[in-house]
């Protein structure tokens, strides 16, 4: 455990102050201000708030929250399908904890489905879902898999493992989505001066898949870790690029991210998954080639095939602004129901549910009056 003390060095207040000072200096050299910088990941959004960084940034920097929250981008139709799997089709559903509280249609959630008798288990790993199938041989166990590229390799691995063990009662309802597709969608609708790229996703896919951001959209992108000094250093790298008129993909998180990514993980993903023609995202809509489907070869473990799941389109309630918040068009406090009708205890939209959601971050850590973010 003592090797975890290294965390301290990424939270050093002295270094933090000097990085902040250099941000101030760079900000004065920017060609135009304010600059709009998106932190793509919900993890970064939370770090900004948890470490109290936002109010320390020079006023020339405006942070915009991105859609990097797996639970938030899951459309209602898919929650409805999962509830149906549990209540109507009688499957034991295994999923990650955050998913349970996301509202589907008619404010129904998996948590409520469980109270109505649905057998729904929270797991902290895909392997745990597989273990459930082994301990419930007489039941159909479905892993409701969600997430960006970070959680995809473990899902691929359990499908391979289920095949190896010859499990007949295990399948996966796959809802894995692709980060670069979401970035493309954001950049075609929102004007940004820079992007803080994902930490964990990039450990899997590397930095190369972001090249189009710099090359085609001319927006600088810096992949960053989740610690406060990581974030401040990444901002400094972004401001330098903007000040110098460059747009490149740079890697602040070199201690964990290689340009080519994690080849074993990528191999796992492509062995089991292929790109689905289109995937509907909450907020971003139907994006081509943006989600993954289980390959024909592993069709036996595909819950969508096994249970003939139809995912319908369900609109978000008119008062909830999750869609615009996920696109970076609006901030959480621009939403009329933020903090009043919609709170972490009574979430209307997914952004208030997830530990990575922008609304949850602003509510949990933010000022109680007035706007800061």
């Amino acid at each position, binding site marked *: 455990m003592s090797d975890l003390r290294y965390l301290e060095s990424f939270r050093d*207040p002295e270094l933090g102050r000097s990085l902040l000072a250099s941000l101030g200096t760079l900000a004065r050299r920017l060609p135009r201000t304010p600059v709009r910088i998106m932190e793509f990941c919900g993890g970064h959004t939370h770090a900004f708030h948890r*470490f*109290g960084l936002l109010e320390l940034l020079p006023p020339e920097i405006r942070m915009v929250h991105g859609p990097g929250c797996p639970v938030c981008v899951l459309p209602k139709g898919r929650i409805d399908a999962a509830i149906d799997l549990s209540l109507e089709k009688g499957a034991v559903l295994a999923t990650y904890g955050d998913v349970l509280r996301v509202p589907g249609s008619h404010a129904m959630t998996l948590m409520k489905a469980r109270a109505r008798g649905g057998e729904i288990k929270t797991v902290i790993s895909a392997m745990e879902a597989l273990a459930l199938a082994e301990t419930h041989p007489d039941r159909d166990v479905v892993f409701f898999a969600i997430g960006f590229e970070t959680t995809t390799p473990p899902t691929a691995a359990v499908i391979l493992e289920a095949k190896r063990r010859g499990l007949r009662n295990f399948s996966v309802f796959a809802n894995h989505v692709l980060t670069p597709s979401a970035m493309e969608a954001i950049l075609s609708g929102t004007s940004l001066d820079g992007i803080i790229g994902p930490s964990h996703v990039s450990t899997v896919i590397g930095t190369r898949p972001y090249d189009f951001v710099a090359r085609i959209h001319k927006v600088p992108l810096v992949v960053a870790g989740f610690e406060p000094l990581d974030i401040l250093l990444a901002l400094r790298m972004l401001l330098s690029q903007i000040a110098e008129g460059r747009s490149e993909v740079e890697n602040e998180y070199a201690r964990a991210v290689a340009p080519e990514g994690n080849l074993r993980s990528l191999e796992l993903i492509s062995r089991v998954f292929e790109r689905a023609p289109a995937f509907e995202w909450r907020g971003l809509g139907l994006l081509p080639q943006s989600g993954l489907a289980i390959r024909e070869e592993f069709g036996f473990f595909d819950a969508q095939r096994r249970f003939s799941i139809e995912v319908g389109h369900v609109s978000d309630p008119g008062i909830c602004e999750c869609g615009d918040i996920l696109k970076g068009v609006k901030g959480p406090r621009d939403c009329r129901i933020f903090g009043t009708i919609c709170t972490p205890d009574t979430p209307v939209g997914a952004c208030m549910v997830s530990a990575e959601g922008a609304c949850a971050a602003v509510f949990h850590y933010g000022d109680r*009056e007035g706007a800061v973010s």
Partner: protein
Amino acid sequence: MSGGRGSMGPRLDLEKGRVEMVQGSGGRASCQLVEEIFLPAFDNPWLRKEGDQAQLDLSEGRWAMSTDSFVISPVFFPGGDIGSLAVHGTVNDLAMGGALPLYLTAGFVLEEGFPLADLVRIARSMGEAARSCGVSVVAGDTKVVERGKGDGIYINTAGIGRIPPGVNLDPSGIRPGDALLLSGPVGDHGASVLAARENWGLATSLCSDSAPLHGLVGAMVESGPGLVCLRDPTRGGVAATLNEWARLSGLSFEIEEAAIPIRPEVKGVSELLGIDPLYLANEGRLLAVCRPESADTLLGAMRNHPAGREAVSLGRVGRGRPNFPSGCVRMKTLMGGTRTVDWLLGDPLPRIC
């Protein structure tokens, strides 16, 4: 206890035996469980009478009463077990009112099949904890539920304690300007239980802080006037206690992240699990509000007591101001920013006490 009380048949197999339904039936087998496990562990004059109730001679004055149920998983964890925890939990709830705990009751809900060896170990640990706290377990009850209807063992304890004359600890006395003190590092209990549950081999140096606090409270009360109120930050951690006080008092609480003592091992576990140590349960720590002029004396008294050796000043009580209205908790972060310290976001961590 020495087996001379009528015929009970063969003695229980305390090494390999398991709890059976019949032991909760109220018949001979129930009696045997009490005689062979609980009486030896808790031995005192009240229990020896084996009545339906304990009869106590209580002095006049104010008495505090409290109850708490313990459902922790795993039942054995580094630094304690469900038995010692059940004693410390209720002792500490009484102590937070300034009371000197004297008598406890213990209720056990056992699951059919629970190893008797574990029950003996838990009962002995409870007995030892009670003796070292100076309290007696004067009455008890045991029920057995079918296999699958419980999780090994649940324990309820209730207790009463005498509040010394002149002691009146009450959060309604909190005023702007008051100081906020913390008796030691946060999160030791929550982190060690979670690490024990995850079965991580790496967290060997982690240990629960489960300990009685009435001695420390006694020393604080004796150090002079100015102590306003106390609370032990168990479930929901320091964050929950501060939010409760902020809500009750209608005032704002301002703390400094740099002042919060957190052991490196606890930080490590928190990072791995994605949990803020401010939300981790403590079972041997207290938070105190006191008048600002008494803070130094009180802090000195705490640090002179073994249970408060690592006590710190955590922050202060304010009036609230724009962007930081009354009823909420704000923290100056290490990086120099400020943020709200909210109630726990999302589901509480289950089964930690």
